[in-house]
């Protein structure tokens, strides 16, 4: 592909994916790491442009997920090194975003779910991926996505009930203590 065509195609891919991928990263790590990982992801897209499919979003999500895992591993290694040197540095893992959005019962319920269920629900609700796109990101069939989503939503409802009861119980105890 001539350089100009390559650049034009790349620009089209970037404009299609940059906002959803940027939001995906911003939801899962701190702002600085998100920015670095977005740049890494775009670089991979440029280097692997011939492999980017016609519907690029699921493919680019997988690349972004790999780049983010890589950055978090590097941060953990750095934390381990700092501890070995006996220094008193900050946390060894990348701090996550505050994700309860003022709904502590929902935050409690998501935290109690299996990580794979919670991530599936986040991809569905926050990243607004269609079942077809979810299938591409997770490497499963669309039918399997629909079944998993149905089950994950059911488990979330169960956990919401439990967390709401717990929150009510805590409030009741605080009133009794007064």
């Amino acid at each position, binding site marked *: 592909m001539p350089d100009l065509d390559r650049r034009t195609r790349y620009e089209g891919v970037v404009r299609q994916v940059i906002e959803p991928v940027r939001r995906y990263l911003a*939801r899962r790590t701190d702002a600085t790491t998100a920015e670095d990982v977005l*740049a890494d992801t775009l670089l991979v897209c440029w280097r692997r442009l011939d492999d980017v499919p016609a519907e690029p979003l699921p493919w680019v999500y*997988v690349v972004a*997920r790999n*780049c983010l*895992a890589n950055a978090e591993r590097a941060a953990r290694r750095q934390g381990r090194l700092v501890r070995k040197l006996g220094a008193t540095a900050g946390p060894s893992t990348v701090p996550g975003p505050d994700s309860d959005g003022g*709904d502590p019962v929902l935050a409690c319920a998501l935290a109690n779910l299996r990580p794979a269920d919670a991530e599936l629900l986040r991809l569905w609700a926050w990243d607004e991926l269609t079942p077809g796109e979810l299938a591409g990101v997770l*490497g*499963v069939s669309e039918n399997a996505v629909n079944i998993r989503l149905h089950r994950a939503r059911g488990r979330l*409802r169960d956990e919401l009930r439990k967390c709401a009861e717990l929150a009510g119980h805590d409030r009741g105890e605080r009133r009794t203590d007064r």
Partner: protein
Amino acid sequence: MTTPDEDDDLLSRLRAADPVRDLEALPDDRILRMINAATASNPQPASSPARSPRRPLLIGLTGATGLAAVAFAAVAVFSPTTASATRLVMPDDPGLAAGSCPALDAEQLKSSPLTMAFSGRVTAVQGSEATLEVTEVFTGDPGRQVVVERTTAESGDYSGFDLVQGQDYLISTVEAGQPDAAAEIALCGVSGPASSELRAIYEAAFG
């Protein structure tokens, strides 16, 4: 049985808790700068790893024919740039826990963004590193020898695997993300001990 309304309520509640719901879109000049940075930093993009015919190493052949064949294979498979070992890392956070990994098939393997796929035998395990001699290349260029940095699983539900001396493995890798970082082993059943089932999938995908 839940109703669509109940699903809508759940969706609304989740979306209200989206931590970046107020994030503004990047201005166009910023997007252009990022595009320019990516294209300028690597003016000659890497072509995708060749889906070339499999390249077995002719181990076990004897005599002049065998030696000639081995010499040919060595020239064909190992370029001078791969004289030193390729470094890979075993992720400790593959994104999906073992129980969530989808069943692997050839079509999925073929369409995954993999950079290398090969088989190899573990010849040494020392500390956190395992050395493998590459025995067959399905795609990409792992070189003759691969060193894997092993990590300790932080979760009991981990989709990684141990590398045991003398055992054979089928391994695929994904792009590391950062240009100088070691490539990452693809987990979730994509890489693992060289069972006949996994080999059949590799052969169907790359054969």
